[in-house]
Every structure is written in structure tokens, then in C-alpha cells.
């Protein structure tokens, strides 16, 4: 039987007992009936006032929202008229690299609970009998549970469901971890492939960041490089040019990656050799632009396995690449020193892309924060200012890897580099001397330490995840459900992405 929300109080009009000693009983009944009618009318008016009050409150809320919406529309209209498409300075890279738009959707939760009880129902509830006062026994319990919960617990079913959801999410995550471990145990080749795929994805995204016309193509030549090197300043005026150059430099690495997708292949194929000279000179201009940092990191990549896998991304690839990089760097450094006079050591003819990955000159003498960034410093040291393509060294424009592009270093270095290639060598070389020798040995140990830390961090993260799950969940149905669904339906994607997130950051 449905619960009646509003009851009109004197339900029966004529059933009251008649007082005694009355002669005209019929009139008495009539009068009492009329009196009951009046009471019914009063309760009816009370309910009507309650109904209209609820409707008024809702309509009032809508009125407030509509008013605020109207204000926003007006402001938007003004803004739109002020917008001028010709003046807009949005760079195409920024569009895709900014945080994606997410509208704030408010979901109704706990709709039928004690908090949302309407007033008449609350009145009926208060009139009903109370449960026995078992709460007074609570202080005397051993297990510190609420005494009344054993008799009647309104939140019982919700707690049950919440526990079940959380348990399911934990179980799913454990399964995934087991699967990951199994995959890791199976073989390292798979890891290499997976890593490459991830990097390719990033490259794809970087490539897709540009419009089709702006994607790097084969038109770059040495002239661009010379022109860029002669520009000299890293002002925003040159940034557009630098950005163009960097666009060209981006595909350098894709050229060499084996796992390139067909979309990228068209851009990558012919670009490699041409970028060698160009990229070297342009990279120093390029580095300071923080926006391109991410793009640059993706360019490093992806060499075929025989030389140790050269992870492009700084933090991402820092671990596997660093040992290879260290091996590469001294040779590269030596090459850079050639013009200034240090005895050149015969470099093995490395694959150009591999070297470019290293050379991606972060000419940052200042070592960045991450341990992975230590490699960045090494890269900076290796970043030759525009060495002519001697010994087939190719400098792919790889912007400083990852998170904090060290701002002060590059501009100074870049400017010096751009001024004159030969002069530029002295300054960065000195820095390189300083930075390369000590950090090489330290970076390796740091990297190993970072690897170990990474593993340890993962375990701690798991624990923290478990704790985090349990602590602040509260009664948020939406978040619980979203977590559960996310764990369930994002099986394969989450693996690689999770790995990426671990390394990158």
C-alpha cells in the first residue's frame, strides 16, 4: 500500500461519540459533522500551503539559475563581439596540449534518504513510535558498535553495497597486477614493443597536434638551419620560426622508429637526413619554448632494438635509454669538441636517429629535478650547437624532455649558440665539460636508484591506493560506481597507460 504523503486530519466526520443528555441528536450530529468539516478544511489549507511552498521553492531555484544564466549569456555576447579571429594567437600545438574541456556534471546521489525527506512525511515520521532506546547500551559494548544498529539500521543496505563495490574494485586491480606481472615475466621483448607503441602514440598525438598543412614535411633544408642559427635571439618573434623549425624537427625521430603508423610515415620518411643539420641549430632556440617540450620528448624515440632501445621521452625513456645514452654521449661530446680542438674519438657509425635522440639538445647545463632529468643535463651537454653533419651525427630537435624545461639555461646557451656556431661551442662545451663528466657516472647510479625507487614507489602506491579507497569514500555513490566501472572496463588500455603514467610525469 503506498505511503500517503498528506493526510487530512479528521478522517471521519460523523463518528465522534455524542455527549449525553441531548434531545435533538440529529442536529448534534450535523453540528459536529460541520465542525469536523471545518477542521478538515484547515488541514487541507495547511497541506495546500505546503504544496505551493515546495513548488515555489523549486521554481525559485530555477529562477535564480535562469538569472545567472542570463548574466553569463550577456557577458558571453559581449565577449564574442570582441573576439576577432585574425587577432587570435592560439598556436595549433596548444589546442591539443591543453587540458581537455570537462563540463561539471552534477549527479544526484542519495536521492531517497533521510536528508531529502519532505516535510509532511517527516511529520508523520515524528508522530510514529520510536524504536526502543538501545543506544543507551552503546557505552557498555565491547566492540564499540552502535547498540541500535543491531535492532534497526537505516544505512545497512547502502553500507553493504559500498563494501561490495570496493571489494570488487580491489579484486579487479589485483587481477590486473597479476596479469601485468605475468606479462613481465614472459619476456622483455614484449615490454620493448609496448613501450614503443606508447611512444608512437605520443608521437601520433604530437603529430596530430598540428594541422595537416603544418606537419613537418620534406621541404626543410640546410638553408633553414642556417637561417635559424643566424637569428640570434629567442624572442617570441623568432618563436614562430622556431616553432616551424621544430615542427620540421619533430618527425626526425619518427623516421627511424619501426613502429610508425602509416599516418606518420608519410611525414617521417624523407625527413630524417635533412633534419640533421637543421635540427641541431634550431634545437637551442626550441628548447626554451615550454610548449614544445612535450612534443620534443616524443620525438626521441624509437630506435630499432639493436642499439639499446632509446626511449625518447625523458622520464619515460630515461631508464632504458640512459645506459645507452651514456655510452653515446661521450662519443658525441667528443665530436662536438672537434671544432674546438679536443681529439676526436672515432665514433661508431651510430644510427642517426639514435644519436639524435641523445643529441636532442637540451643544452641545459642545469640538471633538472628528476633523476631522469639528469639525463637531460647530459643531453644538454651533448647537445651540440650546430655541428655540421660530421660523422653523420644527427641532431633531432628534441625539446627538453618532460616536465620542467630549465628556462634560464637554454636562452643563454641558445643565444650564444645562435650568435655564432663556433663561439657557441666554447660556452656550452665548457658547461658540458663540467656537466658531462660528473653527471655521467652519477646519473647511472641515480638511474638505477630511480628504477629501484620506481618499483618501491609502485608498491607504496598500491598501499596508498588501498588506503585512499577506504578512507575518503564517504557516501559518494557516483565516485564508487565510477571507480568500479573504470577498473572493470579499462583493462588493456590501462596497462600501458598506467605504465606510461608511472614513468612520465
Amino acid at each position, binding site marked *: 500500500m503506498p505511503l500517503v504523503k498528506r493526510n487530512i486530519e479528521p478522517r471521519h466526520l460523523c463518528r465522534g461519540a455524542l455527549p449525553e443528555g441531548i434531545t435533538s441528536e440529529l442536529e448534534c450530529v450535523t453540528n459536529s459533522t460541520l465542525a469536523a468539516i471545518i477542521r478538515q478544511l484547515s488541514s487541507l489549507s495547511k497541506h495546500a500551503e505546503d504544496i505551493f511552498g515546495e513548488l515555489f521553492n*523549486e521554481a525559485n531555484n530555477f529562477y535564480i*539559475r535562469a538569472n545567472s544564466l542570463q548574466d553569463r549569456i550577456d557577458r558571453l555576447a559581449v565577449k564574442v563581439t570582441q573576439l576577432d579571429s585574425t587577432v587570435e594567437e592560439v598556436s595549433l600545438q596548444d589546442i591539443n596540449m591543453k587540458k581537455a574541456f570537462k563540463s561539471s556534471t552534477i549527479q544526484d546521489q542519495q536521492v531517497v534518504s533521510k536528508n531529502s525527506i519532505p516535510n509532511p512525511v517527516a511529520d508523520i515520521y515524528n508522530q510514529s513510535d520510536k524504536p526502543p532506546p538501545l543506544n543507551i547500551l552503546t557505552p557498555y559494548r565491547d566492540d564499540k558498535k552502535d547498540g541500535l544498529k543491531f535492532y534497526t539500521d537505516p544505512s545497512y543496505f547502502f553500507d553493504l553495497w559500498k563494501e561490495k563495490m570496493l571489494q570488487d574494485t580491489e579484486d579487479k586491480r589485483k587481477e590486473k597486477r597479476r596479469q601485468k606481472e605475468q606479462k613481465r615475466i614472459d619476456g622483455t621483448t614484449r615490454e620493448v614493443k609496448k613501450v614503443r607503441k606508447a611512444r608512437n602514440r605520443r608521437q601520433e598525438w604530437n603529430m596530430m597536434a598540428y594541422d595537416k598543412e603544418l606537419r613537418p614535411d620534406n621541404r626543410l633544408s640546410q638553408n633553414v638551419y642556417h637561417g635559424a642559427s643566424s637569428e640570434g635571439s629567442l624572442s617570441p618573434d623568432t618563436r614562430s620560426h622556431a616553432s616551424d623549425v621544430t615542427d620540421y624537427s619533430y618527425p626526425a625521430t619518427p623516421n627511424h622508429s619501426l613502429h610508425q603508423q602509416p599516418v606518420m610515415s608519410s611525414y617521417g620518411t624523407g625527413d630524417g637526413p635533412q633534419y640533421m643539420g637543421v635540427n641541431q641549430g634550431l634545437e637551442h632556440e626550441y628548447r626554451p619554448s615550454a610548449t614544445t617540450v612535450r612534443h620534443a620528448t616524443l620525438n626521441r624515440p624509437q630506435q630499432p632494438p639493436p642499439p639499446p632501445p632509446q626511449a625518447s621521452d625523458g622520464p619515460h625513456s630515461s631508464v632504458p635509454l640512459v645506459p645507452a645514452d651514456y655510452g653515446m654521449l661521450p662519443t658525441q661530446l667528443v665530436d662536438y669538441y672537434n671544432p674546438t680542438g679536443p681529439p676526436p674519438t672515432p665514433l661508431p657509425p651510430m644510427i642517426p636517429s639514435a644519436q639524435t635522440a641523445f643529441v636532442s639538445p637540451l643544452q641545459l647545463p642545469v640538471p633538472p629535478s628528476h633523476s631522469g632529468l639528469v639525463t637531460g643535463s647530459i643531453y644538454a651537454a651533448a647537445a651540440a650547437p650546430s655541428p655540421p653533419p660530421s660523422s653523420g651525427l644527427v641532431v633531432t630537435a628534441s625539446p627538453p624532455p618532460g616536465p620542467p624545461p630549465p628556462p634560464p639555461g637554454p636562452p643563454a646557451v641558445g643565444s650564444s649558440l645562435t650568435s655564432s656556431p663556433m663561439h657557441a661551442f666554447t660556452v656550452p662545451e665548457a658547461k658540458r665539460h663540467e656537466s658531462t663528466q660528473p653527471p655521467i657516472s652519477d646519473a647511472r647510479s641515480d638511474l638505477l636508484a630511480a628504477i629501484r625507487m620506481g618499483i618501491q614507489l609502485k608498491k607504496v602506491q598500491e598501499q596508498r591506493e588501498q588506503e585512499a579507497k577506504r578512507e575518503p569514500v564517504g557516501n559518494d555513490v557516483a565516485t564508487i560506481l565510477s571507480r568500479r566501472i573504470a577498473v572493470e572496463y579499462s583493462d588493456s588500455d590501462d596497462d600501458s597507460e598506467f605504465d606510461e603514467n608511472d614513468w612520465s610525469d
Partner: protein
Amino acid sequence: MSLQEDPVQREIHQDWANREYIEVITSSIKKIADFLNSFDMSCRSRLATLNEKLTALERRIEYIEARVTKGETLT
């Protein structure tokens, strides 16, 4: 007899009249109650429609604001 019946009859007639009067009143009360319930339901449905429209509008405005202000914040 008729005299004795008359007051009783009148009383009974009067009682029937009163009851009819009371019946009219109570049926009117029920009509008022029905009207209030149906008014409440229809108002709630219209307000819900309004709410949906408002929500859709708000989301669109949020999106447009994000589109329009993006260029500004970049500079």
C-alpha cells in the same frame, strides 16, 4: 399522529437536508484535494522539463565560455 410525526418528519427532513449540505461540502473538499494533487503533479513535471532545459543551457554555456575564453587566457 401526523402532528407527532411532523416534528419528527421535519426533523428527519431537516437532517436529510443537512446531510446533503454536508455531502456537497465534503465532495467540494475532495475536488479541492484532487485539484491540489493534480496541480502539484503537473507543476512538478513542468518544473522538471524546465530543469532539463536549464541544465542543457548551462552546459552549452559552459562549453561556449571555455571556447571563447581559451584564446584570452593564452595571451
